């Protein structure tokens, strides 16, 4: 490891903003774990008994005229030309009364996807501020009288930002995924592959590193953290929200979808498409057809975006004067 990178890592470690980001990400991730803990709670015997009692009451009412009322209403509707419906669907079933018992695979894992947002935002800010703080304080000029060429200084700062971002991702995973996993394990609801959480943790670390590299690249290009956040906000509003509405096929290119795909393994999305009906010659209809962005595809898109932004930052840094 070069002396420049070591110096940047020390600077990263002693910056208060680094610790602030870590604390905020840990707090948000902890709130995810707390929510998961609540959802994984075992129903109490009293709740189960109350559920059984409610079921018995509704069952009795259903047998005592409820079904007949339903059938009568069905006949009336049929007389008016409406399609009759199946009254059995309205019959009380015990499984609809007993409190749901969540499982890790179906209910725990999806929580981990919600950790991506705090990790991305925290890592982006961390990377951007690591660079822009130097431009703001004017210390970049002094730094460059010690480190040349500029590409060397750039690489060290981006690498340090990446390390910081990875730590943000790992912390989010440790607190959020660890807490969620613990909730399901302690409350005896860990039915499924708990080791999948470690994969999510690794992907969150990579996600944090990529987001921090994007932040650092934007920091080099724009030199102000407010400008970086402005660009990020513009991107979210125009590209992530508006563009898919105007052009549905742009959806797989949105970063939000690719982040989800990377963290959760895959992310489905729908695109309205003309679907031909084989029973009608030349006929068909427009339907929402589901597609899926795979995890690796999402990771590649994110890596390409990070690389493009980093190169743009390097070009601007090499060309622009430094005060």
């Amino acid at each position, binding site marked *: 490891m070069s002396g420049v990178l070591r110096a940047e890592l020390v600077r990263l470690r002693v910056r208060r903003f680094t610790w602030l980001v870590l604390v905020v990400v840990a707090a948000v991730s902890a709130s995810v774990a707390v929510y998961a803990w609540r959802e994984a709670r075992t129903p109490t015997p009293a709740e189960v008994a109350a559920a059984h009692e409610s079921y018995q009451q509704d069952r009795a009412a259903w047998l005592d005229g409820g079904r007949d009322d339903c059938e009568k209403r069905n006949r009336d509707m049929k007389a008016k030309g409406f399609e009759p419906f199946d009254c059995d669907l309205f019959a009380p079933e015990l499984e609809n009364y007993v409190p749901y018992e969540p499982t890790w695979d179906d209910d725990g894992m999806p929580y981990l996807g919600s950790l991506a947002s705090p990790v991305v935002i925290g890592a982006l800010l961390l990377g951007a501020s690591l660079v822009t703080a130097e431009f703001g304080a004017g210390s970049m000029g002094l730094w460059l009288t010690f480190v*040349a060429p500029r590409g060397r200084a750039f690489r060290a700062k981006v690498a340090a930002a990446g390390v910081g971002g990875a730590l943000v991702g790992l912390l989010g995973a440790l607190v959020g995924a660890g807490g969620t996993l613990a909730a399901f394990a302690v409350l005896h609801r860990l039915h499924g592959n708990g080791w999948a959480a470690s994969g999510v943790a690794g992907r969150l670390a990579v996600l944090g590193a990529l987001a921090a590299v994007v932040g650092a690249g934007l920091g080099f290009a724009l030199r102000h953290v407010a400008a970086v956040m402005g660009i990020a906000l513009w991107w979210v509003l125009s590209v992530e929200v508006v563009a898919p509405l105007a052009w549905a096929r742009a959806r797989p290119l949105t970063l939000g979808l690719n982040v989800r795909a990377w963290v959760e393994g895959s992310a489905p999305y729908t695109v309205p498409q003309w679907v031909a009906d084989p029973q009608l010659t030349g006929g068909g209809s427009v339907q929402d057809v589901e597609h899926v962005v795979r995890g690796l595809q999402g990771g590649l898109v994110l890596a390409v975006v990070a690389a493009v932004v980093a190169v743009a930052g390097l070009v601007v840094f090499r060309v622009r004067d430094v005060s």
Partner: protein
Amino acid sequence: MDELAVELRGLTKSYVRFPLTRVPVVRGLNLDVPAGGVHALLGPNGSGKTTTLRMLLGLVRPESGTVRVLGHAVPGALPAVVGRIGAVVEQPRLFPAFSGRRNLELLARAADVPAARVDEVLDEVGLRDRARDPVRRYSLGMKQRAAIAATLLRRPDLVVLDEPTNGLDPQGVHDVRALMRRLADQGRTVLVSSHALGDLEQVADTVSVLAAGRLVAQGRLDDLLASRGAPRLRVRVADPERAALALAGHGWSAHVDGGAVVVTDPPPAADVSRVLAGVGLYPEELTVLRPDLESAYLALTAGSGPAAVRDPAEVGS
């Protein structure tokens, strides 16, 4: 001037100001800084001094012209030479949230300088007692000291200081002056830009004067001062009219000015004193008036708008 620490040729730089107007800051600048000694870079505000220093450090890209520092073309060969340069340009810009020591340690680490060197430079600038305080709590003078300490970390061959005595108390000014002299005596080159002409006059060996982005004078300080005229002698006596007549009687050019006799191109003061004593006049004051850097600077930069600036080719070195 055999060897040059800095050699600038045809350097040009302009900035774009609102609304999209190009403002030339440095115009075809040719500048030589001899290796070894203290070289003062003088000029009014806006004359292009700081931009010039930034260009030779590779922080600002010139539009045209060449920069050679310690024999290497900059910015292309900057990596080869950056380890031999220590620089503080404009204001000391350290990381404000970190202590002075932490700042120096980071820079030392980046430059692969042993950590023990940090204590040495802190001692050298007299900042060891406050080394653990955050830089944002430093006075401007302390920031200057810390920044100068940073420049010394690598024992540089070329030290570039931009207004190094800004904000320093008299003791600090004295210390920086002594430091510059000490570095020069060690064979290093100190390129210093400052408006403290009195301080520079005491320490500079050579000088360059910029005005409106161009070089208007360059050379040894002694030569520059000598070119502004010979020394004069001011004599205060009880009867200046009679004293002027007595001195003129010996073929010396003397006239009364402001209640004193001023002798131009004067003989030794002892001879003047002897002549006056011969006519019963005893000097109350004998002062040699030499052209100083301030007067030379003011004369060179007077009305330093573009029209008043001579072509650099006319300026001898």
